[in-house]
């Protein structure tokens, strides 16, 4: 709209300035010609002037000459029909503007002529008009004016129409987004905002919001799974405790079997507390709500200490536990979290590695990241389960009968995530599982 208006304004200014230049040019030429004619008059008197005009009228000339006497009687000139057709306008600056219409036999206007010129009074006897046919110029002017006008109008119209269509389209899309948002708010988290193929900001917004919703939905499902699992995993030991207590109460026990039952219950409750502690540990590490401090750690020493902690147990279980890290590797991290992560992995490797198991723990400095691995020569994990075991409470069928909360690897994952690292479960060669922790070294 503003654009159309400014275009019109510029065009109008252009029109005004060109038409004024044009008029000035004509006026100047007319003045030149009349100066020449007045000199002719001075030198040759009226006779000379009349003769000059008669001469000019006969030769091809862009100018119009009309010489009349005081009674408006035509004396000389190239245009004689003065009475009937003149439609004379006297301009303020002494100029004249007149027009006449050329009509055909039926009286219809064929062409309209325009003249612009000056009127002189010669010796109070004669009236001389010198003018120029400006029909064509006027025609051009009219055309120019009309074109500008119609173009401006068209632009304004198109602008308004385009604006309307655009805003209409824009508003439609916004209201579609609003509508979907409301539906999502009402609880349908599977709804997604409408997107289109064009890559404008609104579409970007929709895409980003959709990605956000995907992520939220995934988290929601994760949360739901976790709470389902909590309910399930805690119901089992609680049920066991209840039955144990109930049966003890029903029988007629001596104090020794009371003690026995109480000890069993304490163990069961401990496992429930362990589950809660692990869950809390995971969420604390994940939310980063605790100000976990980072310090410079020598991974070599860290691994040595953990291997030292686990070595007797491994030996007792007939597992060979090797420390493959023999050089100093430094890392900015939280010692307690990293120790616990590696400890959990060794625990798993020993627990699930089966017989004749060899567990290797090592580390390597890969310039931009530190790699820490724990491998075993056990049965490994099938590819389809590798993602799953990182989730909370995942316990593969093969491990149902061993003790554990099903939170060990999730805890490791959250601790590695805290260090902005990645955890990868791969097949070891020739068999077994290798867990690779990759932690960026700044």
């Amino acid at each position: 709209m503003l654009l159309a208006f400014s275009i019109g304004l510029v065009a109008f200014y252009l029109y005004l300035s060109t038409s004024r230049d044009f008029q000035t040019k004509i006026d100047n030429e007319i003045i030149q010609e009349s100066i020449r004619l007045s000199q002719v008059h001075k030198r040759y008197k009226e006779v000379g002037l009349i003769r000059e005009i008669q001469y000019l009228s006969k030769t091809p000339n862009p100018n119009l000459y009309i010489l009349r006497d005081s009674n408006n009687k035509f004396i000389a000139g190239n245009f004689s029909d003065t009475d009937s057709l003149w439609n004379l306008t006297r301009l303020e600056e002494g100029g004249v503007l007149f027009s006449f219409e050329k009509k055909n036999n039926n009286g219809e206007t064929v062409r309209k002529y325009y003249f612009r010129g000056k009127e002189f009074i010669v010796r109070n006897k004669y009236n001389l008009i010198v003018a120029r046919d400006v029909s064509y110029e006027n025609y051009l002017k009219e055309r120019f004016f009309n074109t500008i006008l119609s173009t401006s109008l068209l632009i304004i119209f198109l602008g308004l129409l385009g604006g309307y269509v655009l805003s209409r389209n824009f508003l439609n899309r916004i209201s579609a987004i609003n509508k979907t948002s409301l539906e999502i708010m009402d609880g349908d988290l599977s709804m997604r905002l409408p997107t289109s193929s064009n890559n404008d900001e609104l579409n970007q917004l929709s895409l980003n919001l959709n990605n956000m919703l995907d992520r939220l939905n995934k988290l929601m499902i994760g949360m739901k799974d976790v709470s389902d699992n909590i309910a399930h995993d805690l119901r089992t030991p609680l049920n066991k405790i209840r039955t144990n207590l109930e049966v003890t109460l029903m029988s007629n026990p001596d104090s020794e079997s009371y003690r026995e039952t109480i000890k069993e219950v304490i163990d069961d409750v401990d496992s429930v507390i362990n589950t809660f502690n692990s869950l809390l540990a995971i969420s604390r590490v994940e939310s980063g709500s605790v100000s976990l401090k980072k310090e410079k750690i020598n991974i070599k020493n860290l691994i040595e200490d953990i291997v030292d902690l686990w070595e007797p147990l491994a030996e007792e279980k007939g597992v060979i536990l090797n420390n493959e890290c023999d050089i100093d590797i430094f890392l900015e991290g939280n010692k307690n979290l990293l120790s616990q992560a590696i400890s959990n992995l060794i625990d798993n490797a020993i627990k699930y590695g089966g017989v004749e198991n060899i567990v290797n723990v090592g580390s390597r400095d890969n310039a931009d990241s530190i790699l820490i691995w724990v491998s075993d020569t056990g049965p490994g994990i099938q590819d389809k389960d590798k993602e799953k075991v990182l989730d909370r409470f995942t316990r593969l069928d093969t491990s149902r009968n061993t003790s554990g909360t099903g939170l060990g690897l999730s805890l490791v994952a959250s601790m590695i995530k805290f260090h902005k690292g990645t955890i990868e479960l791969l097949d070891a060669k020739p068999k077994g599982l290798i867990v690779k922790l990759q932690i960026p070294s700044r």
Partner: protein
Amino acid sequence: MHILLIEDDINAASYVIKGLKESGHVVDHASNGEEGEQLALTLKFDVIVVDRMLPKLDGLSLINKIRKEDIDTPILILSALGEVDEKVLGLKAGADDYLAKPFSFSELLARIEVLNRRTNPEIKETSLKVGSLSMNLLTRQVHRQGIEIDLQPREFRLLEFLMKRSNQVVTRTMLLEGVWEYHFDPQTNVIDVHISRLRSKIDKPFDGKEMLFTERGAGYALRSDD
């Protein structure tokens, strides 16, 4: 032992009081910080157990005030804030030990008893002796009944920790924290194996009297064979 328990949770406090009394201790209880401060400043206690989050005066400020009055009674903090950094904060404030909630009563009891008999840290000992077992901290030699026992460095530290707390129950967590400096609990009982290894060196060759005991559900204790 005369113990001051400052804990605002009446339920939790009543169990702890009951347990401590069962174990033969005398307990005074304060249910807010100001009351606790009053008691700590007026009576003489062997150990003070303080919850960190208390009404009126929080645990850390309370400890600060007590320490400013030159009362050096061993203090143990109980807190739901169990992270290592929180523990460090508590110890810096002047506490001697820190136990995260939820805790088992045997853990609390073991720690209170160790705190009570804690050797003065300012006296640097050069040798330890429990019954027929002796340890030279300078030459790092261990003898029982005059026979030298060869120990790995970690076994040495483990035995040193136990000998310094002889005739007391030491829990797994205390060992993990004190010997390995780990503030997490590897659920699988790795400590058990370390203890049985140590036992095979200090007990087995000396048939007759056992010194290193496993206290079921609580921990371990090194007892004199006298």
